[in-house]
């Protein structure tokens, strides 16, 4: 019987293309707007490392201005990033399973192939633990060896994209690349990896593409690279030389650890507290109780990756969907009542009210499905605009889950819109329209 009703729905749409088209358009516009906003929200509020949410921690210690907290609205929080001194000191702890400080640099690539002009890319200096800690997938090779974190070794890990560009996607492990005039040996090439939000560093945009290359942070003082990213300073001090900057109270480094057990977590908290006490005792500005260990989820929350206005937009677009549906209710009523004659014939020939009710609702669901497909198209266009506006890069924002949600919403919404009209029409008396012939 379901197939029969579907066929009737198709016939009815063909018979009444304008009214049906208007209904689909109303649903499509409503679904399009709602799905755009919902996808943006879904995309923004994702936790790309959810499976390690209870063992990974963003670390912060408060060695900020004694006269002013870093966040005015949340004075209990330490600064978003660390100073170089603090980062190096924390890296000495052997409590975490994995630990890595990290920061952005830029480098100029000089390809061997002379046909490719030199180009500039963002890179990340960090530790070998970075890759294990964040489950970064490798296509070829792997991270550099641990010794490269202690002793200068000119080694590099490339993103898949840059490996495509430099080596045509071939296995480049063991090959050399020239960055800023120096040769580096490739130890690994990543698979495509686009965590969104880019949880481990949200300072230059939470939806930025990951870096093109990774170097051991050990090389920082040797290479003295151009840094890229956010730097925040509070202390009036001399920042003229490389050395002076590194010794300053400026914060510019991200820090992450993996702590697998409760006991590790407690010990690490104690460690941070003790570290800050020690810093205070040697006369640095430090707030011993203001240290932070935030899970990825908490970290995204603290950094307001999902803005409040985004939630408001989801709500508004939902209201808009409801307005579109109310329109649809009117159109459906008009359409159904226009068919009262046929319905009373069906009733006379033995259709029960429930039969008629079902027939109408299946038609509504079908229109909703078609409207939903059109709505997905509109949402696709909407998301393209949003990406341009917000500079979201990388992975697609409309995943399978969202597409499923869109269809279910469209079908349920139009069935809901059809309930009242279908109820009205199934109560048409069977004799009513036959007599007036």
């Amino acid at each position, binding site marked *: 019987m379901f197939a*029969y009703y579907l066929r009737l729905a198709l016939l009815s749409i063909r018979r009444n293309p304008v009214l049906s088209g208007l209904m689909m358009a109303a649903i499509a516009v409503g679904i399009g707007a709602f799905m755009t906003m919902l996808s943006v929200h879904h995309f923004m509020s994702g936790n790309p490392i959810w499976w390690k949410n209870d063992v990974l921690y963003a670390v912060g210690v408060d060695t900020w201005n004694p006269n002013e907290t870093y966040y005015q609205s949340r004075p209990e929080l330490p600064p978003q990033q660390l100073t170089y001194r603090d980062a190096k000191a924390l890296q000495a702890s052997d409590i975490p399973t994995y630990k890595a400080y990290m920061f952005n640099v830029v480098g100029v690539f000089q390809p061997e192939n002379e046909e490719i002009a030199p180009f500039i890319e963002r890179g990340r200096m960090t530790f070998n633990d970075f890759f294990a800690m964040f489950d970064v997938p490798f296509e070829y090779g792997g991270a550099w060896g641990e010794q490269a974190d202690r002793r200068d070794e000119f080694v590099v890990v490339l993103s898949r994209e840059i490996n495509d560009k430099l080596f045509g996607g071939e296995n480049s492990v063991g090959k050399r690349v020239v960055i800023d005039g120096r040769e580096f040996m490739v130890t690994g090439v990543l698979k495509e990896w686009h965590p969104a939000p880019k949880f481990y560093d949200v300072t230059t945009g939470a939806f930025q593409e990951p870096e093109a290359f990774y170097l051991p942070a050990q090389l920082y003082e040797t290479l003295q690279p151009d840094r890229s990213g956010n730097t925040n300073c509070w202390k009036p001090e001399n920042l003229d030389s490389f050395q002076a900057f590194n010794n300053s109270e400026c914060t510019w480094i991200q820090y992450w650890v993996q702590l697998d057990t409760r006991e590790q977590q407690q010990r690490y908290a104690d460690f941070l507290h003790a570290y800050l006490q020690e810093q205070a005792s040697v006369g640095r500005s430090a707030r011993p109780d203001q240290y932070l260990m935030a899970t990825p989820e908490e970290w995204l929350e603290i950094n307001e990756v999902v803005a409040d206005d985004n939630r408001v937009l989801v709500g508004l677009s939902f209201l808009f969907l409801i307005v579109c549906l109310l329109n649809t209710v009117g159109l459906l009523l008009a359409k159904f009542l226009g068919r009262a004659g046929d319905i009373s*014939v069906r*009733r006379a*020939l033995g259709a*029960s009210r*429930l039969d008629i009710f079902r027939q109408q609702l299946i038609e509504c669901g079908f229109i909703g499905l078609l409207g939903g497909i059109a709505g997905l198209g509109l949402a696709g266009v909407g998301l393209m605009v949003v990406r341009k506006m917000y500079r979201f890069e990388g992975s697609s924002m409309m995943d399978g889950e969202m597409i499923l949600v869109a269809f279910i919403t469209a079908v349920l919404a139009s069935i809901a819109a059809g309930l009242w009209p279908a109820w009205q029409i199934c109560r048409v008396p069977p004799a009513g329209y*036959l007599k007036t012939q």
Partner: protein
Amino acid sequence: MLKMQNISKVYRTDLVQTHALRDFSLEVAEGEFVAVTGPSGSGKTTFLNIAGLLEDFDGGSYLLDGEDVSNLNDNQRSKIRNAKIGFIFQGFNLIPDLNLWDNVDVPLRYRGFSAAERSKRIKEALEMVGLGSRMKHLPSQLSGGQQQRVAIARALAGTPRLIMADEPTGNLDSLMARQVMELLENINEQGTTIIMVTHDPELARRAHRNVHVMDGQVTDFTEFERAANKRERDALGG
């Protein structure tokens, strides 16, 4: 087959009350072909609609096929209409965007027959009314007489015990009217009870019995010789 006693039906609108039927009593036996005549507005359609369970009545009693139908709910009435009664209307009332096959299919769908069973019945019914070769046509591609034959096929396909026809020839010219009438006579000869409202005295005379309705009441019975003779013959011949 059908037994109505003192049925009354009142239509109330804001301004007026119309007694469409009052003290309407009628019995129709199984296998009969009854023609209902009477002036316009006398209550013929109202009677037919009540008899066909399309409408409720206000007073009196009605037994259909031995069953008291006054207290049935909408669902039960739909089932009885579907299984026991075939309707033929003056305006044909085919569904315009369904082809002949699908139009005849409508009552069978609600009956819950299997696809094979429906297919067999649709073919038989359309062949019986001489339209077996045009099953994929739309109603609008047919003449009025052909459309009414489709409506008859639709009424027949579910093999009802009773056929209600409200001025089935009212919109047809006399030649087509006669063809439709012959079809109904054939159906009746195979045992189906038929109640037919008509204005045409010539057609009415071909029924077994005429019931004349006036002001919502049965005023007159006429039993025709031909029919009476036939019944006697049947009784004698066995």
